[in-house]
């Protein structure tokens, strides 16, 4: 059945873990990147549209557009792997009416003011509160790098790092 096979936050968007692992294990044939910035960046958009494996569709949408198309057509007939660059964009898209059941946090680079919470994932205080908000809306949030590695849920991450 078509639909959202995997929704993931990963600031590198399409990279090795996506191409060699998640595309296959989630049985997706379409990658939808949701990012307000990227959609307006002509150069990088073309890079992402070209740097894809044979037979996989890549679409880039703004948060609003993605939510709108979700409500209208469930984003078409593909098996979708949806990628977000930031927590903020997920929040925005969900605010516009995108319905997701599960959210995988897979990669958020370390920066000043962020705390490393799980392998290559670092979160700011604001991102944590946003994730908790999303979780309160009934979205199951978990942290995982690759399919063969262990995952952790938001609760334990919050308990270990932010309480």
């Amino acid at each position, binding site marked *: 059945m078509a639909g959202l096979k995997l929704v993931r936050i990963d*600031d*590198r*968007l*399409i*990279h*090795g*873990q*996506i*191409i*060699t*692992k998640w595309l*296959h*294990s989630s049985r997706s044939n379409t990658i939808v990147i949701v990012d307000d910035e990227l959609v307006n*960046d002509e*150069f*990088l958009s*073309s*890079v*992402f549209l*070209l*740097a*894809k*494996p*044979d*037979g996989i569709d890549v679409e880039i949408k703004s948060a609003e557009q993605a939510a709108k198309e979700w409500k209208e057509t469930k984003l078409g007939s593909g098996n979708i792997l949806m990628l977000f660059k930031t927590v903020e964009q997920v929040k925005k898209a969900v605010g516009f009416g995108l319905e997701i059941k599960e959210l995988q946090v897979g*990669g958020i*680079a*370390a*920066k000043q003011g962020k705390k*490393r919470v799980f*392998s*290559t994932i*670092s979160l700011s205080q604001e991102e944590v509160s946003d994730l908790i908000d999303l979780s309160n809306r009934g979205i199951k949030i978990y942290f995982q*790098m*690759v*399919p*063969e*590695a*262990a995952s952790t849920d938001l609760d334990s991450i919050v308990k270990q790092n932010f309480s």
Partner: protein
Amino acid sequence: MTIVQAIIIGLIYFLFRFTQLGLTFSAPFFFSPLPMSFCVGLVLGDVSTAVMVGAQLQLIYLGLVSPGGSAPSDVAIAAMVGTSVALTTGMAPEMAVVLAVPAGLIGRQLNVLAYTINVACTHLGDKYAEEGSIKGVIMSGALLPNISKLLLTIPLVIVVYFGPTVAEAAMEAIPQWLLNGFATIGSIMPALGFAIMLNVIGKKQLMPYFAVGFLAVQYLDIPILPLAIFGAVMAFLHLTFTGKIGENAKKIDIDEESQVDEKHLLTKKDVTKSYLMWWTFAESTHNYERLLGHSFCMAMTPIIKKLYTTKEDISAALQRHMVFFNTESVWGSVVVGITAAMEEQRAMGANVPDSAINGIKTGLMGPFAGIGDTLSYGTLLPIILALFVPLAKAGNPIAGIAPVLIFGILSLFIGLWLFRFGYKFGSKSALTLLKSGMFESIIMGASILGLLMIGGLVAEYVNVTTPLVITTGVGEYAIQDIFDSILKGLLPLLTLGGVYAFINKVSKNYVVAILLLFIIGIVLGGLGIIA
């Protein structure tokens, strides 16, 4: 084994795995056990047996891709333990594998520790960057992490030294039925390596090539090496017929006029220096916070040194490049080259703000990692290794070192070419390369060759048969004969299918998959259902 031998083996591990110096030559040690087995053989004076053990292990780990430092198992430690035990106790390679695999899983923790040490060094690098000290940035990335990791080598030396004695005692205490079970594990496990590789390159429409490889070996007894030549021919034909190569194919559309600028502040030597810095240290500073960020900054030092003179400019440039960066380091070299070009533009007065440089770096690192991981570790390295597995199985020492040299030298020059290309044409080069369809064609061709070879290797090396016999009034029927009359190698094929379904449907967790395969092996082998 003497203590000196154990220490030398530990130091070899330190050199290729902890320091990871010389990216393209150390990467094979990260992704494949065969090279480490070869080294252990050299030290213990029996390379021939060592590469046989290495070959058996290699089949299990073929196609291991570990993007973003996500390796589930340390294959070099597996090889170290398995090979040294086999060589000192005379244990069969199939048995040594049963010890080696868990050792690899546990050994993985040492790498987590090593990455933790690297974080501290990167933080020190930050300080030097702030002070504008190029030397400090290099020292904190090149010397410190590596010297401190010598300490981590000590537990390995102890394991290598005492391991064989412990293993021998354990083996004596183990009952025969369990030994049968272990042998069965040894014959099932190669299916895991093939299943993992199928996960990366096993596209549905290309699966007939797998069938051809399997049937060719099963019914025509074609050896693996000539099979690879057939595979190369078929890949060539496939690419020609699909228009990927030949007259109508897209070409690298180089518009010489689109070169970034006529004027250059950097010489060819500076650019090569920067690449060599990248090649030498790309993975040395790997950690969970910045991944390859510190290494990236180290690669930029020859550029920064040449372009900037004031303390402020140098410090700003160093800090600019200490941020998070992660890509596949061979094919991702193009991103480093592009960045060098952007820095040069900036130094010549063009309006290239920090955000532009960062945007290009972070935008391009992902896509090129996706391509690079698929090419380097999903196809090229496993194919080269698979070519040499038959020789290694026969105990030919060349098979232990040739894959490292071939992959290492080839990748060294691929990286250099991409780096220079990126520097010459700036950010446009990324689109030029992607539009040329070059990566797609190489991935397609390599996948075809790879699938054909996996087919052949499954037929050759997944040795699952059943000794069961049905007794009826008329006589005895060996079940194996019935299987053979349907399709030769039906059981190996079913085993592969089972393992493939298992890691995709039942448990994606690698550790759980291995544990369950162990249990299945012990039960089926112990009960004498398969042999």
